[in-house]
């Protein structure tokens, strides 16, 4: 096993809302190895973005609150850092790309001004050097006519181009960890593939670790080494990419798996979707959070929350792979 760059232990990020306490991220642990890509999958609202914003120290408080846990980055707990220290880490050691390329760039500054800003914040460069480096970065992310684009405003670029700019901005200070929060969701399919390929290529070149957040297992298959599946603020399965695609173990994971269209599928065959919806925080089931939608749920699932435990060389949160399951099915 490689060296751990980031290790999250028992992270709890809660929101105090008018309707009550929302445990958006509830006791989540995982790690990212140096030079590897961890994929995080899950339906909308399961806490993927909040997990990454917690790492960046960008959760709004209030209403948010980090109620517990540790975020160890290069061995140091980010939750103990001052705002000042976090600022020198953000953008420099940990960079982030967001879901919405259309709105993530500031409309009143040029691409160049925004790139230069990041460089000047973290590197000891003159304005001229920053400009050269910025243009070099635009070329690296394969933006045609980089010099010209450099002085243009975001609205003059297409969504795919803007996401490339975001990637250039994220990578310009050679971060150790790149967090991509659904970087391709808002883009059309051909552009999606190009962006993923670009991220992969740059990762190979720079040795950056990547956290790839998505709700699309297809994206995971493209880029990830390890996969973490989240459901309602908790990790339900954590395995290598090969393991997951060979044999998904958690019922939710194989539910997700059946949602991916396959090329050899008969056109008439309908895509299966997971019935029901993610429970909202104010009617969370007492037992397994997935049990209202789980085709295999048994009595024990409704009573107790299963633990995340090891099974067949990976971590799964489901009674099916425990001794209790045998016992309860014999009753």
């Amino acid at each position: 096993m490689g060296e751990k760059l980031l290790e999250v232990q028992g992270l709890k990020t809660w929101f105090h809302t008018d309707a009550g306490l929302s445990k958006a991220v509830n006791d989540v642990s995982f790690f990212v190895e140096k030079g590897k890509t961890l994929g995080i999958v899950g339906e909308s609202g399961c806490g993927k973005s909040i997990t990454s914003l917690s790492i960046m120290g960008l959760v709004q408080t209030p209403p948010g609150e980090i109620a517990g846990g540790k975020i160890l980055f290069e061995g140091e707990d980010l939750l103990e850092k001052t705002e000042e220290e976090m600022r020198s880490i953000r953008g420099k050691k940990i960079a982030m790309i967001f879901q919405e390329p259309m709105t993530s760039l500031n409309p009143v500054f040029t691409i160049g001004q925004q790139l230069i800003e990041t460089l000047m914040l973290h590197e000891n460069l003159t304005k001229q050097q920053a400009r050269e480096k910025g243009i070099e970065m635009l070329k690296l992310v394969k933006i045609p006519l980089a010099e010209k684009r450099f002085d243009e405003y975001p609205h003059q670029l297409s969504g795919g181009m803007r996401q490339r700019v975001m990637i250039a901005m994220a990578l310009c200070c050679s971060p150790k960890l790149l967090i991509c929060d659904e970087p391709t969701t808002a883009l059309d399919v051909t552009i999606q593939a190009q962006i993923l390929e670009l991220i992969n290529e740059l990762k190979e070149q720079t040795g950056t670790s990547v956290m790839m957040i998505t709700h699309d297992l297809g994206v995971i298959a493209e880029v990830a080494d390890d996969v973490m599946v989240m459901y309602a603020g908790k990790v339900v399965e954590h395995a290598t990419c090969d393991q997951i695609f060979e044999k998904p173990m958690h019922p939710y994971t194989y539910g997700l798996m059946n949602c991916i269209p396959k090329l050899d599928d008969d056109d008439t065959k309908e895509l299966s979707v997971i019935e029901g919806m993610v429970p909202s925080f104010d009617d969370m089931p007492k037992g397994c959070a997935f049990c209202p939608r789980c085709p295999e749920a048994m009595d024990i699932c409704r009573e107790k929350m299963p633990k995340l435990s090891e099974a067949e060389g990976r971590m799964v949160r489901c009674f099916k792979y425990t001794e209790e399951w045998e016992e309860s099915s014999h009753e």
Partner: protein
Amino acid sequence: MLSYTAKRLGQTVFVLIGISLITFVLLQVVPGDPVALMLEKRADPETIAKIRHELGLDLPYHIQYYNFLKGAVRLDFGTSYFTKEVVSVALIRSFKVTVKLACMAFVFAAAIGIPCGIFSAVKRGKRIDSVVMVLSIIGVSAPAFWFAIILQIIFGLKLDILPISGFDGVSCYILPSVALGARYAGSMARITRTSMLEVMGQDYIRTAKAKGASRWSVIMKHALKNAMIPIVTLIGTDFGYMLTGSMLIEKVFSIPGIGKLAVDAMSNRDLPLLEGTVMYIAFVFVIVNLIVDLSYAFLDPRIRYGKGAA
């Protein structure tokens, strides 16, 4: 940018012509015969007719309008029926006073209102936010003359540190500009807060934070430049209002500005003076709007370079 400016300038000329026509028509239909008022009781029909002829009031309307327009282009609106002062001279004299008052009131309002609005937005939901917002409501809703009288009592009579009337030194303008600026400070604080809050929730603000930008830079650079776009519209219009003179404030502080000129012109049916004043006010608004639109383009590249270019 050049073609945009040219286009806006063209529109401006058009608007001014339209306003001159409306002004002319309205002044023909206002009740009360200026000549009769001028001559008071001594008026006999013959003299009235004679004077109407001298003033060109007996000419057909389109000729009168033509004469009015011809004069207006040269800023020549004739002489006042009452004071016999040349209208443009009276306008310039009053304008000098009003512009001083307006500039001071504007600087006061912006210097208080905008920082308070930013501060309030940053401290959203905290007690200080509520305090600023309550003060701004008082500023917006308290009548200016009431405010003016309170200021006169405190600073003029009790403390005796500032003059309560007159218009010679800068010190004379302090109380009037505070009284005039108070409501604008309030509305500026409110629009700034709203606009900042809206911008602070945008994705690009999160991007700026994720880069490691400081709180100050996120607020004063990334957020404020975007928030300024709606703020500029409001404060531009506000400045326009201030330049048209405040009748009440001018009355309370005995300042002979545009407001007083307008009141005099109206109560005397002094047609040339009224025409001149109305055209001045229209002109101020048109120019202010033009400047606001051009500053939009300056602030917002999406306008400068045309929308939707991919």
